């Protein structure tokens, strides 16, 4: 009886011990799973947050770009409208009418001063093309442009000084006419 009871107790004891270790292993597995799940959850949340932040950023930037594009287009339209307004205000017909309104009249008599050495504003000669129909549009190089501008500037400065001195002499000789007709 004792033996039977003892063996049964032993078995129970052994059995309990195995069960305990299984429970223990189950407990540690659950903890790992939970930690894993939490980590996955955190990772997914992080990724979700990252995605949402980026998406939100992209959306905001997209709207901003869209709005800026619209603004640019609007300003371009406004610019075109203002350019037309300027051109219309400068229209010769209107300028003439406005001048008349302000009391301006065409001059009855104009005095002209003939100025020696007036600088030419265009090249004096051009080279002929080889044959008719074969010539192409010759384009200025920037260097040629600069040289020509510098020469024209120097010539203009000399011419202007001559003009001023000539005008001064003229006003002394004919002060009345200068006053009456204005400067040419």
């Amino acid at each position, binding site marked *: 009886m004792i033996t039977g009871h003892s063996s049964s107790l032993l078995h129970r004891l052994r059995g309990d011990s195995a069960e305990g270790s299984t429970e223990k292993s189950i407990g540690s597995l659950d903890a790992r799973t939970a930690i894993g799940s939490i980590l996955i959850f955190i990772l997914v949340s992080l990724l979700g947050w990252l995605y949402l932040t980026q*998406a939100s950023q*992209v*959306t905001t*930037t*997209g*709207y901003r*770009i*869209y709005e800026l*594009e619209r603004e640019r*287009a*609007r300003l*371009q*339209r406004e610019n*075109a*409208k203002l*350019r*037309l307004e*300027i*051109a*219309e205000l*400068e*229209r*010769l*017909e209107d300028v003439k009418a406005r001048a008349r309104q302000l009391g301006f009249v065409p001059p009855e008599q*104009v005095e*002209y001063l003939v100025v020696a050495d007036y600088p030419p504003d*265009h*090249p*004096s*000669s*051009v*080279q*002929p*093309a080889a*044959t*008719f*129909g074969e*010539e*192409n*549009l*010759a*384009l*200025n190089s920037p260097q040629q*442009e600069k040289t020509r501008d510098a020469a024209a500037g120097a010539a203009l400065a000399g011419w202007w000084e001559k003009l001023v001195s000539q005008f001064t002499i003229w006003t002394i000789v004919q002060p009345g006419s200068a006053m009456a007709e204005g400067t040419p």
Partner: protein
Amino acid sequence: MSAEEPQGKPLRRITFLSAVLFAFTLINVGQLFRWQVLEYDHLLGLAKAEHDWYMEIAPLRGTIRDRNGHILALDIFEFEITAAPPMIVNPEEVADRLAPFLDRPRDEILELLKSGQPHVRLARRVPQQIGETIESWALTGIRVEPRPKRVCAENNLAAHVLGFVNETNNGYYGVEGYYNQVLKGQAGEGQGERDPAGNYIPIGLHRLAPPQNGRDLVLTIDRTIQYMVEEELEKAIARYGAETGTIIVMEPKTGSILAMASYPSYDPNRFAETPVEVFVNPSVSAHHEPGSVFKIITMAAGLDAGVITPQSTFYDSGSIEVGGRTIMNWDRQGHGLVTMTDVLAQSLNVGAAYISTTLGRERFYTYVRRFGFGRITEVDLASEGPGRLRLPGDGEWHESDLGTNSFGQGMAVTPLQMITAVAAVANDGLMVKPHVVEKIVDGQHVTTIQPVAVRRVISPQAAEQLTWMLVEAVQKETDLATVPGYRIAGKTGTAQVPIPGGYHPNWTIASFIGYAPPEAPAFIVLVKLSNFSSCWESPRTRQGSLLDDFLHRKSGNWLRRAC
């Protein structure tokens, strides 16, 4: 049997329910098949029309300015208003708001909004202010799209030089036609998605290829000279009752055209209301008999070939026979022993025929061709014509043409050909290609068009001799063409108007070409009035009156300025 009844009822009910469910499922599957297979393309199109947007973005056409930077033509914006009726919740309210702005009856707009079509156009060419107002309302289902519109800021100023632009952004005639590809630019496109309310979805498919705007042009035209020329031309037309007229002002050294005006003209902003024939620029496309101004060319040929000098004399008996045809002077008189300068001053046809016959057909026509007659000048304007010139060897040429051509009859030239030829004399015998565009501007990159010499037509010595002969001729021919204090080299001309079977009994073409100052010509002017009835006693009186009008009284002022 009664015991089986309670078991049979649920079975029938289940069977019935199953049948109903089966039928329902069948209908669903059928509908899905219909929507997703049979009507797939149609429904996809509808969905795309609702969610996707695609827009071609029109480029801005290049601006055209005069040589001093004043804007002559530019693009502004108008708007096109369209609607997507399926997206509009309250069509009545939308129609009420739009009708007062769109210049269209409210019921008409409402009908379109209720049409059920995916897309309808409500208005085109809506002014910018109205378009932007409607845009600011942000109405769901209403699209407001800007469209460029060409505007000539000075209305009809230099209309023939500019040409016009139609609704498809294509230029015709003038520089708009000739430089269409330069001015036009390249269209861009925008593509994206929007929500059912019509709002832009920024994270959806989005693509924007901006348009490439056209390049700007800076013309050689001076709008002030152009304005004065047009004003004077109109006055002269009214005074003499002429049908048409042309004035060209050019720099002989560079070929730059400073002004080019013709009457009748038109407003390029209203090209749709203009008769087609008025679009043609008579300065480059219409040809006429040049008359006595062509004696300049004959004289140039004689001087350059060495067959005459300014002092050469010949006896003018009043007529000469060339190719079996008797040629007489305009006054049907003989003038005795005259110099070559007298031939120009008195505009003697017999003297001109004497020179051409002395030269002989080969040399005479070589010079005529060298001066550019019978072929285009290659000016940068659309629709240029070559004129009409019969040459020996052509079936139509006759021996008598050698005589009549020498004083500008039996041939046809364009005004631009004529002024370009005489400009060669003014430019020491060197012919320069005429042009109206000075610069092509592409953002910061500027391409300057340089003068291009075509060929030497006569020697500098011959050109100088002829210039001083023309100065003397103007002084002798009519003092009305002179400007006190300045010398002008020039020649008047009258020609009859050819009609089928001969010449018009009354109509005349009167013209003048002159350049100044003769030492270093800064400009050359051609004036031509056509198709007016003569009420003067002689052509010389008539020319004098014209010169009086164009040069002495009015143009004299700007001739002085230009000097």
